[in-house]
């Protein structure tokens, strides 16, 4: 088809369930989603206009947040719908081939790696756990104005109150770090892999609480409930953190390779790989 190129969302094993999952599904730009199979792996694909996805226009579009959001949501929508039915390896946004021939070629070339990762991820889901430090948890020592500080010179009173503030803040941080560790331990008991994402910070974080950890766990589907209640309990009332749980996600954070695998598991942040490797060894 001239004027269009093939956008690949993810890779899965071919099956009637996969065909079902894409039936009627719409992807980027509202285009119908289809399956391109080669051997025993299959790609989830749709046509996108070459005018938007050739190198230059693509680079230009990526500057446009609205465009980026639309494509990201469409990409995720397809992955999400497919993951509801079958195990899928999500590809990074905007993986594009000139035509289905190119898609088949990459499926053939990467077949073994895709298969082994699919087998590993089968029956697992990803849960996101973000922990926020509750500002209320910061013990707010008696503010200045006590009898004692009135005896101090203004300078000393100031320094003293500063140091008290600092101590309180340190304590709050330490308490939050402890809580993060406890939640992580509770979560790990039910997870087979773990990846630490960067904390989300800045104005988008609603409210006043600070995101202190942002983790993804790969959890056997059957243990999701146990996982969730463990996390909720560990971050429950009386702890200085609040948990925000998202998911279940398709295994985005675990698609890129088994811990210790040679491929770029987490090229961007090396600590993840080590972490993942350790998690895998964690007792169940």
């Amino acid at each position, binding site marked *: 088809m001239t004027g269009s190129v093939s956008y690949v969302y993810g890779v899965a094993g071919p099956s009637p369930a996969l065909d079902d999952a894409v039936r009627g599904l719409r992807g980027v730009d509202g285009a119908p989603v289809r399956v391109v199979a080669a051997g025993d792996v299959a790609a989830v694909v749709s046509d996108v206009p070459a005018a938007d996805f050739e190198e230059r226009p693509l680079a230009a579009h990526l*500057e*446009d947040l609205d465009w980026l959001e639309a494509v990201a949501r469409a990409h995720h*929508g397809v992955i999400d*719908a497919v993951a509801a039915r079958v195990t899928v390896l999500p*590809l990074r946004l905007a993986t*594009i081939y000139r035509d289905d021939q190119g898609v088949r070629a990459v499926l053939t070339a990467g077949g073994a790696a895709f298969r082994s990762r699919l087998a590993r991820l089968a029956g697992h889901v990803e849960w996101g756990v973000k922990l926020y430090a509750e500002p209320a948890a910061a013990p707010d020592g008696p503010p200045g104005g006590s009898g004692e500080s009135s005896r101090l010179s203004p300078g000393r009173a100031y320094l003293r109150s500063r140091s008290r503030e600092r101590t309180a803040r340190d304590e709050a941080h330490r308490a939050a770090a402890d809580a993060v560790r406890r939640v992580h331990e509770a979560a790990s008991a039910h997870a087979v892999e773990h990846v630490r994402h960067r904390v989300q910070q800045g104005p988008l974080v609603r409210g006043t609480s600070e995101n202190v950890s942002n983790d993804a766990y790969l959890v056997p589907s059957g243990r999701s409930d146990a996982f969730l209640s463990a996390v909720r309990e560990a971050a429950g009332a009386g702890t200085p953190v609040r*948990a925000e749980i998202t998911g279940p996600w398709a295994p985005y954070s675990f*698609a890129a390779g088994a811990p210790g695998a040679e491929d770029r598991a987490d090229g961007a942040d090396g600590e993840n790989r080590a972490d993942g490797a350790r998690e895998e060894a964690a007792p169940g």
Partner: protein
Amino acid sequence: MTEPHSDNLGSFPSRAAPSYGQGSSANLADILERVLDKGIVIAGDIQINLLDIELLTIKLRLLVASVDKAKEMGIDWWEHDPSLSSRADSRPSLSEENRRLREEIAALRGTRSLDRAEPVDDVPRGAARGEVAREDVVAGEVTEGRRRRAPTRSGTPRRRTAEDGTARRRPPEDDR
């Protein structure tokens, strides 16, 4: 404890979705984090320059922190980044900026020697500009660069260069 997945009836009408419900309601930051930063990377026929991807990823980390507010904060890199946009070249040249900075240093030195002679009362302009810098910092904790840059006295609106893309922002408001 809030759990967004409790309101996660996504856009997929299929009853197959009870367990996969993120759908369109998922937080954009969470989605971008995953579709851009995670997922398998395989070479497509159409390549985004790898450097561009890295750049984009770095910038998106900022963005993930602040998608809604980024524009308000002036982190509008997608509009002004010379490496991404052709119309970002209207900024004054670096040498021009250097010249201004040198003038400013000279002016400050002059003020300082006056200060030594008499009690500090009329605070030199530098301090006033320091306030501006602080406001800038409060407005968005994202940046390091901004703090350093804010005291720059500028007669004309400036566009930032790619090097401090993270800190890009409108020029200091004041300049009486």
